[in-house]
């Protein structure tokens, strides 16, 4: 086979905690190998050197929360051949999308002494509300092995093995005892997309939805069970209002219970 040309990789940050891009630096065993396969052309968390675009692969972390960022994401899109969003902020608006359920001005004055200086949008929105996204990698934070898998798949021209089924599938493959059935601990696993290898149930706690809704989820049926297990509507609202609060199925579910409570 012909020598593959080194693709150029860029990493962009919008409103986020940096955790997802840090996943790349957390690939201790693979980092140097990655840098042999791709040219890390723009990655401010790691390097002052920047190479001009266009970029073959752009990883975008963070959500859009300011007018300036709403502009900037279009520049990033234009400069990128493949744009992959990483993490709950970029794919669903992130924890900061909790503002979407409230009056953002009130939030601003709660936190800042001089709210007039704060330039912010009413909503924290995922990247795909602004530009076309080629692939979404979920998680809060993303799983570094899934990130490697996605990079790998793009480098090798195959489909990434990123399943969209429930956390339960991984939970069972891993041989966990179901915390919901055996311990009575409410768990979002059945409506949440796999990817973490059922981390929370493995540590005896209920899944709290880092990877967002699975395909074809059924939150109302799960909530009904939570209610039967003794959870209040407020508790259900909070359960669905975490890092993927603004993802449609979770948003609808929390709003339905908010209306009831």
């Amino acid at each position, binding site marked *: 086979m012909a020598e593959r040309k080194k693709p150029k990789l860029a990493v962009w*940050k919008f*409103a*986020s*905690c*940096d*955790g*997802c*891009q*840090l*996943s790349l*630096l*957390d690939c*201790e*065993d693979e*980092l*140097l190998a990655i*840098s042999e396969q791709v040219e*890390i052309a723009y990655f*401010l*968390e*790691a*390097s*002052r*050197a920047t190479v001009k675009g266009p970029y073959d692969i752009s990883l975008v972390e963070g959500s859009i*929360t*300011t007018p300036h*960022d709403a502009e900037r994401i279009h520049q990033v899109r234009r400069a990128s051949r493949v744009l992959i969003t990483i993490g709950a902020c970029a794919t669903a608006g*992130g*924890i*900061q999308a*909790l*503002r979407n359920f*409230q009056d*953002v001005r*009130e*939030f*601003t004055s*709660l*936190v*800042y*002494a*001089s709210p007039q*200086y*704060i330039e*912010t949008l009413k909503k924290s929105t995922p990247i795909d509300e602004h530009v076309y996204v080629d692939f979404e990698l979920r998680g*809060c*934070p993303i*799983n*570094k092995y899934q990130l490697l898998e996605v990079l790998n798949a793009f480098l090798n021209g195959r489909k990434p093995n990123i399943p969209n089924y429930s956390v339960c599938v991984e939970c069972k493959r891993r041989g966990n005892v179901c915390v919901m059935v055996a311990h009575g601990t409410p768990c979002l696993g059945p409506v949440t997309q796999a990817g973490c290898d059922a*981390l*929370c149930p*493995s*540590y*005896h*706690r209920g899944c*709290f939805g*880092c990877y967002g809704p699975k395909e074809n989820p059924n939150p109302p049926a799960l909530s009904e069970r939570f209610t039967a297990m003794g959870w209040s509507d407020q*508790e259900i609202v*909070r359960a669905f209002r*975490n890092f993927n609060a603004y993802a449609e199925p979770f948003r609808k579910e929390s709003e339905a219970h908010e209306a009831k409570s």
Partner: protein
Amino acid sequence: MKQNHKSQTIRVDYLARVEGEGALYIRIKDGRINDLKFKIFEPPRFFEAFLRGRHFTEAPDITARICGICPVAYQMSSIHAMEKILGIQIDGPLRELRRLLYCGEWIESHVLHVYMLHAPDFLGYQDSIQMARDYPDVVKTGLRLKKIGNEIVRILGGREIHPINVRVGGFYKIPDRKAFQELLEDLKWARDAAIGMVRFTAGLNFPDFENDYEFVALSHPEEYPFNEGRLVSNKGLDIAVEDYDAHFEEIHVEHSNALHSVLKERGAYFVGPLARFNLNFDHLSPLAQEVAREVGLVPEIRNPFKSIIVRSVETLYAIDEAIRIIESFDMPEQPAVDVTVRAGTGHGCTEAPRGILYHRYTIDEAGIIQTAKIVPPTSQNQKTIEDDLYHYVSRHLDLPKEDLTWQCEQAIRNYDPCISCATHFLKLEIERE
């Protein structure tokens, strides 16, 4: 130089190799600094606002998301604050495990900073990957050390970033003793590697730059501080964490629009490794003390550039401490103590890798958070960083712009500022003449 006679503007729009995004704006006129702003433009994320109305047990998971670099610190500060409210004191093996988790985060964060963010500055590389071409072994050692730190967090916390296993009262599950034991061998390698790390960083070239800072850190009678202690300084501060708000405030300073945390009536202060080291040297492990002395590092260090050596010493300490904890570790009987809700206000302050991280919460009798306040280390250092830059830049105005820019970046990186942490900085307005 010619440049000195006209006005010049240096703007670094995106600061590289810091976590998060910040920018620097300097205006020079007639050879003097006319204006200097260290600007943070992480979009506001409103954590303190949306913590209101959440259950107290959720604070650790939510506040972790402030920063992907030091989530453990956020989790622990919030947990300590909540435990204060509930009147819980965690002792014995659970307390030890919390220290162990902290060791993991320090190792991982310090090593990341030293090898991947800061060392390239001293050696003149754009990044560690470039540096790896000439110093492959150094970078590989760094990666392996970092991995060991991450491994501790992963075993105990479930994953490296935003761990899921800590809770108010303890942990969800105590991992098998076997998992820790398996780490011991790696940790012993790491201890030697960290000694090398101290020697390596001590051998770098440091600018001759010192200041008379007020160093603030936690201080504990028996141990090097992670989770607990009183807030002390080299200039006489000695208060309980509960009194934080009485002594610290966030003010609006003239040349900048950022909120700077300052000591009331005293001004800027300095938190982080240098402060901890200067104030707690005696509680470092004997080995860490010995190696620090060997490279001529004894309190009081006032050159912020030397923080890279201090981070290495702290890494060595954290490894030593992790070994001690694992070797003397008893399985706790329960992963967590029982908690009963009661209303109240609580304060938590722990030593994030970058310095003290302060949380305060008020919760009602149902455990719902009424108010929250979070002051991360980066905002506490913000004024000091600006002051440093002011002094440092003044001395190097004759440097070509490109070099000066790099020097400034390096000076900022002394503080390993974590800008995602800056939960409440104002966006700066740029003044133009």
